[in-house]
């Protein structure tokens, strides 16, 4: 089980700020995003595109990062602090 958090525009598109998801064996962030898109009926491009960043346990990761049980995953739309 992993916790998945959405922020800003992604949160509005998915309609949730966080969900929980089961992961099967060795699953990457990218694969998980595909499954979530299907399950929550949002287009895959919403959760998988070049402008997004991903984080696992508060660290930036790439979409091929291998998840493990208990991870906190986050989908970060283009940052605009400052």
């Amino acid at each position: 089980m992993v916790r998945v958090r959405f922020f800003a525009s992604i949160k509005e598109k998915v309609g949730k700020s966080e969900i929980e998801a089961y992961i099967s064996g060795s699953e990457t962030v990218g694969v998980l995003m595909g499954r979530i898109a299907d399950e929550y009926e949002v287009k895959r491009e919403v959760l998988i595109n070049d402008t997004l960043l991903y984080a696992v346990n508060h660290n930036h990761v790439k979409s091929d990062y291998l998840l493990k049980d208990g991870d906190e995953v986050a989908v970060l739309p283009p940052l605009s602090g400052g």
Partner: protein
Amino acid sequence: MPRLQRENFDVGKEICALTSKNQRTGAAVSFLGVVRDFSRGEDIEKLDFEHYPGMAEKQLEMLETKAMEKFDILDCLIIHRTGVITVNENIVLIIAISMHRRVAFRACEWMINTLKKNIPIWKKEFSTTGKYWVEDHP
């Protein structure tokens, strides 16, 4: 230690607190970001800043640590506000102090550039015609 806070900050007090802690200080360079009244051709009323609690604080700490490693500065500080901020109000303050000025300029500019790229903070603009998340790096 960086700060992420709703309240405003006092620019002079923060610069002074940093420089007076270190008698070697010769130069203090600061960057202050404030809310513009105009953006992308629209009149702005206010901004609303959302952040990723936990990660934003952690990444800001790492940013200060990296700045200290990367540049020959004596100290640095980042303060970023969250929530609703209206026109002409402070958003972010970044200070770098050093013996000689050049590195303080380099460090301060590097910190604000890196903050914009790495820190999970998002800005929603409320203009006279609508509201939208800012999703580019001007």
